[in-house]
């Protein structure tokens, strides 16, 4: 019986203590007509040896593609120590740190994490994580709607150059509360977002993505000041790696962003098919009580010794129930553990090198691919580590050809951005070598020539 430690004699003894004739008798309050029979859809159990073989075979079946796709998930080097420590039982199998005295490891780590995210984003306060970047954006929008006392139009401006799945998640998560979104277009030449409020209703919040989905760097100062001028709160959606070298949102424009959020995956989480990742959210201190998610504070114990505890729980569902800032309960503690160790290991210098090496490699990739006949750069704006390429032919068949050669060539933009034609979003992080890039260029060249 996997994971059941009871011997027959244990069971007899326990039933005797309970005063029940059988284990089945313990379910005698369940109406008989509801009791289910065999679970026919569940196969027989496997031994660990068998499931190990099965999973190894499935892993081998999928293999590994040489990856040139970003689009919200970035392949960065992760120090071996990160996950060796993160998966220590004391982090891996610990519960949410409600019992603070028995959870100082996780709590101090979260406090360190909050400090790091505050530093990276240039904001005063941080929560202890949300599910992922997309839901962090949705929560940031809901938070802005609660926090913006001056303007409750419930209208939010999103850039058209936003990750299309993020836009979908925002709709799924916020529309029931009456929020409506409206799109800010991008300039067809530069790829930069145009400050543009199509109707006369003043927005409650404006979302600025830096870099935007095309990898293009926005003129964040101008956008921030424009949004503030309309009475909106500014929500910055940022790539955390980029913040090692880019102006932090806290210093955008005259007043800085009000809320900053994003996808934490680049900080130590493997691609892993899309998760678990984590969202981060930082803000000005004045609106901390509108923040969703857990927050850790430093305090003292009965002896005056420093310690850490979850705080401001009056915002949360388990205290405030229907009036909570969010229904969020779990966060992504284990991923935050990895991120905190990651940031400690790479440090400010390492993170800056990750950022600029990724920029440089993407530049090399764009150069190599643009040398191919019919391939061109999509936009002229400055960029971080992703780029749009225009191809001379439909993207999907080319991506299939690349995959057959073991290369994942990027994200096909033509479904979500038909206005861009045969457009492909590519990325080369610090993990790509010159020969990787050469291989991609050669393979694509061969496919285009065919």
């Amino acid at each position, binding site marked *: 019986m996997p994971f059941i430690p009871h011997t027959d004699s244990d069971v007899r003894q326990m039933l005797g203590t309970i005063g029940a004739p059988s284990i089945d008798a313990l379910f005698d309050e369940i109406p008989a007509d*509801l009791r289910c029979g065999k679970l026919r859809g569940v196969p027989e159990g496997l031994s660990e040896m068998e499931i190990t073989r099965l999973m190894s075979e499935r892993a081998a079946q999928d293999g590994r593609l040489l990856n040139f796709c970003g689009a919200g998930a970035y392949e960065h080097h992760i120090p071996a120590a990160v996950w060796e420590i993160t998966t220590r039982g004391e982090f891996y199998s610990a519960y949410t740190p409600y019992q603070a005295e028995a959870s100082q490891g996780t709590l101090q780590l979260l406090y*360190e994490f909050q400090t*790091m995210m505050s530093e990276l984003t240039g904001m005063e306060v941080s929560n202890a994580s949300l599910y992922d970047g997309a839901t962090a954006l949705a929560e940031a929008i809901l938070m802005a709607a609660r926090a913006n006392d001056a303007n409750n139009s419930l209208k939010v401006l999103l850039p058209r150059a936003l990750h299309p799945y993020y836009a979908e998640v925002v709709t799924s998560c916020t529309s029931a509360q009456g929020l409506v979104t409206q799109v800010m277009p991008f300039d067809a030449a530069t790829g930069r977002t145009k400050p543009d409020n199509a109707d006369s209703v003043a927005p409650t919040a404006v979302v600025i993505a830096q870099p935007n989905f095309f990898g293009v760097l926005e003129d964040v100062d101008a956008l921030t000041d424009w949004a503030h001028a309309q009475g909106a709160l500014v929500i910055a959606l940022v790539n955390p790696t980029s913040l090692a070298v880019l102006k932090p949102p806290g210093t955008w424009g005259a007043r800085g962003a009000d809320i900053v959020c994003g996808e934490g995956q680049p900080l130590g989480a*493997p691609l892993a098919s899309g998760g678990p990742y984590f969202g981060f959210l930082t803000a000005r201190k004045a609106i901390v009580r509108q923040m969703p998610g857990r927050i850790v504070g430093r305090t003292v114990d009965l002896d005056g010794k420093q310690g850490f505890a979850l705080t401001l729980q009056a915002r949360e569902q388990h205290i405030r129930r229907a009036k909570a800032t969010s229904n969020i*309960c779990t966060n992504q503690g284990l991923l935050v553990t990895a991120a905190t160790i990651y940031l400690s290991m790479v*440090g400010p210098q390492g993170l800056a090198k990750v950022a600029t090496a990724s920029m440089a490699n993407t530049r090399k990739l764009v150069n190599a691919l643009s040398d191919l006949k019919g391939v061109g750069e999509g936009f002229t704006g400055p960029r971080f580590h992703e780029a749009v390429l225009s191809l001379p032919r439909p993207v999907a068949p080319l991506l299939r050809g690349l995959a057959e050669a073991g290369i994942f060539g990027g994200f096909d933009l033509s479904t979500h951005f038909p206005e861009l034609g045969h457009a492909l979003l590519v990325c080369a992080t610090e993990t790509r070598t010159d020969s990787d890039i050469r291989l991609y260029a050669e393979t694509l060249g061969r496919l285009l020539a065919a």
Partner: protein
Amino acid sequence: MELIFELSSPGRGAAAQHPPVAADLSAIPEALRRKEPPRLPEVSELQAVRHYTRLSRLNFSIDTQFYPLGSCTMKYNPRACNKLAMLPEFLGRHPLAPESHSQGYLACLYELQEMLRDVTGMAAVSLTPMAGAQGEFAGVAMIRAYHHARGDTARREILVPDAAHGTNPATATMLGYVAREIPTDAQGDVDIEKLKAAVGPQTAGIMLTNPSTLGVFERRIKEIAGIVHTAGGLLYYDGANLNAILGKVRPGDMGFDVIHMNLHKTFSTPHGGGGPGAGAVGVSERLRPFMPIPVVGVADGRENREKGDLGSLASNDSRFSTPDSRSYRWLDENDLPQSIGRLSAFMGNAGVLMRAYVYARLLGREGMHRVAEFAALNANYLSARLKAVGFDLAYPTRRASHEFIITLKKQKQELDLTATDVAKRLLDHGYHAPTVYFPLLVPECLLIEPTETEDLQTLDAFVDAMTSIWNEARSDMPKLKGAPWTLPVRRLDDVRCARQLDLRWQPAP
């Protein structure tokens, strides 16, 4: 312990972790460049490893302690689940990788959907919600979408028993509903008369946990289902307590229309110090069109295959190979145009799903049946033994499900013994505290859930600790009030923590 920032020295770093190039900012327009580097820690690799290894040792965890934590199902997290979910190929797979190179991965998810469908008795399953609370959100969103799709937009209320998890009313609010409380009767069942009085054309649905958070099975569930359905409402099942009934009774058979499952409870994926979780949702036939995307389907369009088909996995020679002929694909808005949409950028907490898949295959059919059996055995045993010590059960005439409640109402009055005192003193004995002060309607309560993976000796040793505390309450109350004594810190000042907010380290000025 020092903070990592206090170990930092300007210019120090873990050089092996730096890409082998100089940082060149020249490609960034001057106006967009960062002026001052972020004050991240500048430490050596050894400093980082030692700091976080030592920090980890300040935690309690399943791997080191017994967690009788009601409603949280803190059971053993098999190490195989972690190791196999972290095979290099799975970790290296980009979420948008082509389906042609994802068949192994998709097969796991598809089979997980099928197994969850069977154990819940629902028509279909979507795995994408990233936690229980998001599963709840998806569930209520589907109820809402269902009513709206029929043009029925007048339903503004969601009914919630007073014993419910805080996430239930919070979720209703997030979906624009008013949460209306239904009281519990003295036996711990929903007050049927009050329910009858509450339902009506304004009722969108009811959110229930069964067994409830009171640790008892809601016996009149079919009647409740009838009342709500008759009023035009739908039934939502909060899967927090699914461990209590796995393989014994299925939410679908009880009449529920939608369910979320906490895979980090029932399917034993790790809690990780507060996440990640996974909150897969199962739906009845009428809610199927509204499922959140993406879902994994069979590429030949046979995704609506009959129950039990997966059972064929068990019949072939090597006992576990996948039928070669099948291939899988993502189902998205094109397949489910009425979907409530996307709830995460990609496929939820994919790695958690992989761990749950491994766990489910390890348990298998027989193992699933046993989960509830031994969870109930442990809970009823512990309940009987603690009652014998003198502790008062909140519902002494009821069977415990997988958990049960002790109330210190009497001891609070007589001795000023609180649930917090017991909880903190248990930490000194090396046990994590039970859930305290929840459910809200039982005063000074301890909600105790031992789970099926703990052995008899551990339960007996826990009873010894509780007995010692019982005696200490009569002999040495200061010892209890001052607990814990042996942990890295003693009781923390929560009030100060919330009033004098200190949420980040700052360098000394």
